[in-house]
């Protein structure tokens, strides 16, 4: 019986062990519920603390850190950034309580001791404080989503900064001297920060992110200390969508002077005889390009100048070059998938409401070998003028651009039916009166101030093609029913039937152009009940 007791005791132990393990699991499941106020929030100031990755695999889930919450909390205790950030040659370092990641355990201890200490302290002062136990910082599932928006310097912002620094470019712009290993300023070589500061920090070259946070915030902070107005120092100030919208925008910004041309030919750069040399000369007619106009359309140089502020052709040569990553001038200008290329950017513009109505339902591809090329490629440079001086060229370019008609042409009202009765297939509803002329006018009217559109719709009847597609320009286009008939014709699998053709044409256009009425599902909005 002695044995029996032992056995039972064993059973008892077993039960307890089992139950504990179960319970612990149960706890593991629920964890500790995230404090209600930041549960399932979207925040711009969300920072994931995973620096230890540099020392190998993380042992615990990375910590989500809300920066603005902390700055706010510190302000309450009227403490400032220096509470957490040490400064190095009178500039605050980005890291917490240290200047560089020295050693795994060291960094880990810094975080653990410092964070927890402060949290404890704050809690001691009866104030709302952060967690002090591992699981509350190192959480498996993260309830917060980041709403961080990328921030950049647009024309207006640049103008305001320039003004504030009374056009002392050197305040921000700099070059790096390999020999002296020092930053210096060189007039006329200013460019966007991103040209040098990339995604990640390389030695002697911090990442864009770091650079911005070091310089911008530091400058803002110091300016604020002088009680002058300055840009934001908190995360959301720059990265929260709402706050970005509140940033003051200067409407009329004077051109940034960086010795850029006004109007030029997009063409091979090179010595005059190079250009006239038949071997190396461009076969295609040259494209006059209004740089000044495009400066207006876009709000930063980066939109086109993705690598530097030199002419496209200096890297993207006719036959491709190393510094142009072998992307030839032709591709650089025509690639539909690159937003820096002419066509790429122009296509993005087609997504504007007033364009999308027609263009959304048009397959997006380059119409090669068509006269549309000549809309841009206007003249062969050296056939009329043997070899001309740059000045003459510029003049010629300007002249050609002027000569270009930039107006959407459509037939005169007489040729445009006032209304079209659609009575192809009626069963439960009466025929539909389509206000045809009104529609034409609206379409044309929508784009009359859009220069890009006007250049490409200048042929009479082009705009009609939005609906009267797949047939030559004419005042007498074929009827819809002459192509669209019964649905699901196996010989024309991609061609909708008549009803669907009507409906999708109207509805897709209305949808794309954001026309609220009539609602697609409101039949009687177009069809009179019988």
């Amino acid at each position: 019986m002695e044995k029996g007791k032992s056995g039972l005791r064993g059973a008892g132990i077993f039960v307890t062990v089992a139950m504990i393990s179960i319970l612990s699991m149960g706890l593991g499941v629920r964890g500790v519920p995230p404090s209600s106020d930041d549960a399932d929030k979207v925040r711009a100031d969300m920072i994931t603390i995973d620096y230890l990755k540099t020392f190998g695999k993380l042992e615990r889930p990375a910590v989500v850190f809300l920066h603005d919450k902390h700055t706010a909390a510190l302000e309450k205790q009227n403490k400032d950034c220096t509470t957490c950030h040490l400064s190095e040659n009178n500039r605050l370092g980005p890291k917490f309580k240290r200047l560089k990641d020295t050693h795994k355990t060291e960094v880990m201890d810094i975080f653990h001791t410092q964070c927890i200490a402060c949290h404890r302290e704050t809690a001691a002062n009866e104030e709302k404080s952060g967690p002090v136990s591992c699981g509350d910082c190192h959480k498996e599932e993260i309830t917060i989503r980041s709403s961080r928006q990328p921030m950049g310097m647009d024309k207006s912002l640049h103008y305001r900064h320039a003004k504030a620094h009374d056009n002392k470019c050197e305040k921000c712009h700099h070059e790096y001297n390999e020999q002296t290993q020092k930053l210096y300023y060189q007039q006329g070589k200013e460019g966007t920060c991103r040209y040098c500061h990339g995604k990640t920090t390389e030695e002697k070259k911090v990442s864009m992110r770091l650079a911005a946070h070091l310089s911008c915030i530091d400058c803002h902070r110091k300016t604020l200390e002088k009680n002058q107005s300055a840009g934001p120092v908190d995360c959301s100030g720059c990265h929260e969508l709402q706050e970005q919208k509140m940033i003051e925008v200067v409407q009329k910004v004077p051109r940034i002077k960086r010795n850029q041309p006004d109007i030029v030919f997009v063409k091979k750069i090179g010595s005059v005889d190079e250009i006239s040399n038949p071997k190396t000369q461009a076969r295609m007619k040259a494209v006059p390009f209004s740089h000044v106009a495009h400066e207006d359309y876009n709000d930063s140089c980066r939109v086109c100048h993705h690598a530097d502020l030199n002419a496209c052709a200096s890297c993207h040569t006719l036959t491709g070059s190393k510094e142009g990553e072998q992307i030839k001038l032709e591709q650089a200008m025509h690639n539909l998938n690159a937003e820096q290329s002419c066509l790429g950017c122009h296509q993005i513009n087609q997504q504007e409401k007033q364009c999308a109505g027609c263009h959304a339902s048009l397959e997006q591809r380059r119409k090669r070998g068509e006269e549309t090329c000549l809309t841009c490629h206007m003249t062969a440079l050296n056939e009329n003028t043997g070899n001309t001086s740059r000045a003459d060229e510029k003049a010629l370019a300007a002249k050609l651009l002027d000569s270009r008609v930039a107006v959407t042409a459509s037939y005169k009202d007489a040729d445009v039916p006032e209304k079209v009765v659609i009575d192809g297939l009626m069963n439960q509803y009466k025929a539909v009166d389509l206000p045809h002329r009104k529609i034409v006018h609206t379409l044309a009217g929508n784009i009359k101030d859009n220069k890009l559109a006007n250049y490409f719709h200048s042929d009479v009847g082009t705009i009609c093609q939005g609906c009267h597609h797949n047939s030559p320009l004419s005042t007498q286009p074929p009827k819809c029913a002459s192509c669209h008939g019964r649905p699901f014709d196996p010989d024309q699998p991609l061609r909708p039937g008549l009803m669907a053709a009507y409906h999708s044409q109207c509805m897709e256009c209305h949808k794309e152009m954001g026309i609220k009425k009539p609602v697609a599902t409101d039949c009687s909005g177009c069809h009179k009940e019988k």
Partner: protein
Amino acid sequence: MSISRRKFLGWLAAAGLSTSVTRTARAATTQHFTGYPDSVGVLFDNTRCIGCRKCEAGCNKVNELAAPDQPFDDLAVLDNQRRTSARSYTVVNRYDQVNYLKGPLYRKIQCNHCLEPACASACFVRAFAKSKIGAVTYDETVCVGCRYCMIACPFEIPTYEYDNAITPRVMKCTLCYPRISKGLLPGCVESCPTEALTYAKREDLLQIARERIRRFPQRYVDHIYGEHEMGGTSWLYLSAVPFRQIGMREDLGVTPAPELTAGALSGVPIVVGMWPVLLTGIYAISKRKEKLASEEKELAVTTAVEQAEAAAEAKLAEALAQADEEKKKAIDIEVQKALEEAARPETEEAEKSETEEDS
């Protein structure tokens, strides 16, 4: 690919079994089925759907289903998510938060008419069948109402007439089997105003879908739902957003339903074949054990008896021997006595005679 088929042999045709079995089996080893050639299907393109519920109405009409609580032109119904029910073979649901730029998206739900239907695989009276034309049909005249089909269906399509006490049926879209076999369009397809539903041979639908994606890459996610899901379905889907965002499960995998149970089924004959052998074996062993045991016992008994007898005899013999020993002695003594007796009178006589002579 496909293989030569023998009609299911009647209960008595056991004779023909061997041949047909071997054949099917050999063919089956490298088996891959691609469904009925030229079977039809429907392609649903949610960039074209406007959520007018005309398909629901059309379906209800051609299938003569019970009238709905709200009329079909009442679009407020779309405010809540719905599923198929015994009164509606198909429903359209609205998804608002999926691409806020272009407005809500819609999704039509109905039987997907799998190429390898789970319901058919699960049904123990073969009430469900994949017809040559592509529709998965249901035969209510044999249905027992076990509702295993509803368990099996990964798309949660079949529904049941729970409130019918006497003759409840499983209710599900039939792809308008009667209509399409007459060359008509399915009710929903016919009543769709925008051709959000395209009716064609499944092979062609795949081509159409691919072409649409190619032409408008930014309009669609590059996936044709139903091309491979659960081994492929006759209904195919194109969407502007990932399918999980419009409530379609992307975790179903591509394994055809029948394959899921194939393993278990193949276990059956093995058990039937081997268990009797195994069990009888065990039985035999245990029986033999008993037998041996009993035999040993007997042996022991007999030997014991023999020994006892032997002992007894020995004793007896001894006793006898002793007995005639004594007899002998007794006789000798008697003989002695007798001899002595005989000797004495002779002398007396002699003495007497001597005395008689002298007188």
